[in-house]
């Protein structure tokens, strides 16, 4: 099955990003395709490479980058939501790209399922 994922919350404050990441990993492990993860609202903070959690905590930003590198997952950050929160190309972690909301709708059209993580 082809999955699109929508992440609506920032990392570290809220479980949503962790759950989305675990879901993506589990889906890929089962042989499914995760075509795109779209980051909206505070979810755009998942792309901030300046994030530096304590070493004994998981680094979600890094985990997303690794997932993108290993499994060719398209990590897309909404441009309007990103600009509002100071997420620009110069702070973007590897594997992320900034684009428009059309990428979310496209994931809904092309994918078999769009799964939302947030409140």
């Amino acid at each position, binding site marked *: 099955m082809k999955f699109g994922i929508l992440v*609506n919350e920032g990392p570290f404050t809220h479980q949503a990003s962790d759950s989305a990441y675990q879901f993506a990993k589990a889906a890929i492990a089962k042989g499914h395709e995760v075509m795109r993860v779209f980051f909206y609202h505070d979810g755009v903070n998942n792309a901030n490479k300046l994030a530096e959690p304590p070493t004994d905590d998981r680094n979600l930003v890094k985990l997303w980058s690794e997932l993108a590198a290993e499994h060719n997952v398209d990590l897309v950050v909404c441009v309007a939501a990103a600009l509002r929160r100071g997420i620009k190309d110069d702070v973007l972690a590897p594997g992320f790209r900034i684009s*428009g*909301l*059309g990428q*979310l*709708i*496209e994931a*809904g059209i092309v994918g078999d399922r*769009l799964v*939302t993580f947030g409140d």
Partner: protein
Amino acid sequence: MEEDDFNPEVVKRFMFVNRKAPYGTVYALESLETVLISAAFDQDVSVVFADDGVFQLKKGQDTPGINMKNFSPTFRALDGYDVEKLYVEKESLEARGLTEDDLLVDVEVLSSKELSKIMAAQDVVISN
């Protein structure tokens, strides 16, 4: 509108579910952007207002006191984007002492049971 040159042949049923008050968090404002973009993709779009989301459609929103832009007029413009299916959950309206007359656009008021049937028939449900 966006940079996408993606031109879908497929028309899917997209339902956006607004469950949050218009101010206090950014969800309502940013979610409305998603509705507008989906309409630009010529999809079959419907929008649901439930829980505190029904307040998004309340007439007479007076926001300068909280230094926020009143974005409720945009709901009146949805018609121009061919987004005509606006559903409001009856129970949510009633629980908040509101009636259809309090709302700034024409909507279809449905019970949660009726709404769940429509929801089950969607291809994509995006909830906020």
